[in-house]
């Protein structure tokens, strides 16, 4: 058993059992954490996997969220089915966005994705769509109840707890699918593109296809995260999906270690918990404290949680070997 495998099992055990001992509000925070981990993972596939930079993930998140909300509120669809629909719609959206984005790279792609992120809240507020989106006020969603079979088993499960485990299962499924993707031929094609696009092209990799696919997949996964977010919070509104969310997801990716899927969990933890910590340290200077914590982290571990993990693994292996 390698160090990494043991660590993963411990982490999994913690994720499964901790909520049983927590109050609903903290379970809700853990759900939020899982949801952001999914979104950060999506960004890791895009940037770490195919080398494309995106500051626009909040737009896909928003589309996923609104898809779920509209389906649940206006069409009465069960929340479970909103996830795949959100995923597919966002995949298409991401793929379509990826097409013109093929001509852009680096700073120009950043700007284009940034534009998308900035535009999205405004589009959601548009009068034209108000009937569906609820305009500036957004939509309230009815939080789903845990399924009947649990009650019949005598288990008292709160809505938050049920949603947490539901999210956890989805997150694990996405995680395993993504790991497989990156290890597959397609994943290697994407990474070849990331490392040297010209060489990849010369080797016969269909660069355009894989780049747009990467965008599509990343957007699709982010959309699923958005849908889960909408369900968990029971509410969608345009101003919940601003550029700040996109920036937060970006930071999550960097803190976790770009391209390292397990790091998404660490990165998401940073975005969910550190702002609160910053505010408790100093209300007036919460932004500054946040910035300082961020700087300290990137100074100590520029390669993020991945660096921490590898260093720890190295240390533990050495201790084992010498004992």
């Amino acid at each position, binding site marked *: 058993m390698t160090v990494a495998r043991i660590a993963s099992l411990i982490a999994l055990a913690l994720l499964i059992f901790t909520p049983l001992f927590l109050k609903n509000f903290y379970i809700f925070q853990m759900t939020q954490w899982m949801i952001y981990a999914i979104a950060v993972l999506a960004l890791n596939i895009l*940037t770490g996997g195919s080398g494309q*930079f995106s500051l626009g993930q909040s737009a896909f998140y928003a589309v996923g969220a609104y898809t779920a909300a509209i389906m649940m509120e206006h069409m009465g669809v069960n929340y479970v089915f909103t996830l795949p629909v959100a995923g597919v719609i966002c995949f298409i959206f991401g793929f379509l966005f990826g097409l*013109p984005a093929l*001509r*852009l790279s680096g*700073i*120009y792609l950043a*700007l*284009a994705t*940034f*534009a998308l992120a*900035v*535009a999205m809240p*405004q*589009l959601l*507020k*548009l*009068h*034209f769509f108000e009937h569906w989106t609820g305009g500036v006020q957004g939509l309230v969603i009815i939080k789903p109840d845990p399924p009947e079979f649990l009650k019949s088993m005598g288990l008292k499960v709160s809505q938050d707890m049920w949603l947490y485990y539901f999210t956890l299962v989805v997150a694990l499924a996405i995680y395993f699918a993504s790991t497989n993707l990156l290890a597959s031929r397609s994943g290697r094609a994407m990474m070849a593109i990331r490392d040297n696009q*010209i060489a990849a092209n010369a080797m016969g990799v269909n660069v355009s296809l894989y780049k747009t696919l990467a965008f599509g997949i990343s957007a699709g996964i982010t959309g699923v995260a958005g849908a889960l977010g909408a369900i968990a919070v029971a509410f969608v509104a345009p101003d919940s999906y601003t550029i700040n969310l996109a*920036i937060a997801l*970006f*930071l999550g*990716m*960097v*803190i976790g270690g*770009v391209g390292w899927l397990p790091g998404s969990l660490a990165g998401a933890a940073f975005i969910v918990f550190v702002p609160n910590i910053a505010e408790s340290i100093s209300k*007036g*200077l*919460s*932004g*500054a*404290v*946040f*910035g*300082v914590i*961020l*700087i300290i982290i*990137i*100074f100590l571990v*520029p*390669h993020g949680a991945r660096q921490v993990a590898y260093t720890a693994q190295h240390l533990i292996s050495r201790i084992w070997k010498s004992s």
Partner: protein
Amino acid sequence: MELFVNQVLAGISTGAIYACMALAVVMIYQAIDHLNFAQGEMAMFSTFIAFQLMQWGVPYWWTFPLTLIISFAGGVAIERALFKPLGNAPVLVHVAGFIALFAIINSVAGLTWDWTIKQFPTPFGNAPFLGSQLISTHQAGMIGITFLLLVLLFIFFRFTRVGLAMRAAAALPESAKLVGINVSWMIALGWGMASGIGAIAGILIAPVVFLEPNMMGGVLVYGFASAVLGGLSSPFGAVMGGFLVGVFENLVGTYIPGVGNELKLPIALALIVTVLVLKPGGLFGRVAQQRV
């Protein structure tokens, strides 16, 4: 027709704001090959320093150069303390650094000078320019200073040795070292200059948008967009980009129905992205030719 001309002129005046910011953006890009997301906040902070100096009784024409010097020094200091130590860390980590800087500066400014809007004086006055109702003397002054800055920067980069050295250091640091250039100090110099230009931009913009910690948020975005539109290697492009964005934004707001203030920014950005897709180096930029 008259409405059109009015809107174009009004667009040129707002465009001057973006052009000024775009110059600072291009400056930093020429020095370090990335965009500094905290540029706007640094400019805002410099403007607050100017404000504070004037509160303490320093006359405007002393405040201006003093603020420039302080901003220059501040830019160098931030680079030495924060970004030099990050050194060879991946680009994305530097970006995280810019974001952190943004958060810190914004927060500190808010705490020091609070979040209420303040008036900021202009040396040009606010009278109608040459009797025209469309451009005030301040706006004309802003356009004038922006062009002056542009000319100075152009001369600096194209005709001075330090300018050439800076361009080389940003383009290919290892080769630059091999011709004897101290790349590290070129980067610090670039930061100082960008900070100074940002200060000028802030001081010119504040009389129009009013001084408060969040004043540069929107302006920075437009500044980036203008710089990218114009081509990041070209200060002239940045300025032209600024004016074009200003004019376009105004015309869109006037002539396309249903476009209120909220949609102006996304539409302007959409235009820019469209241009980039068609002309990836920007309107006036040079795309580096890559021979494999």
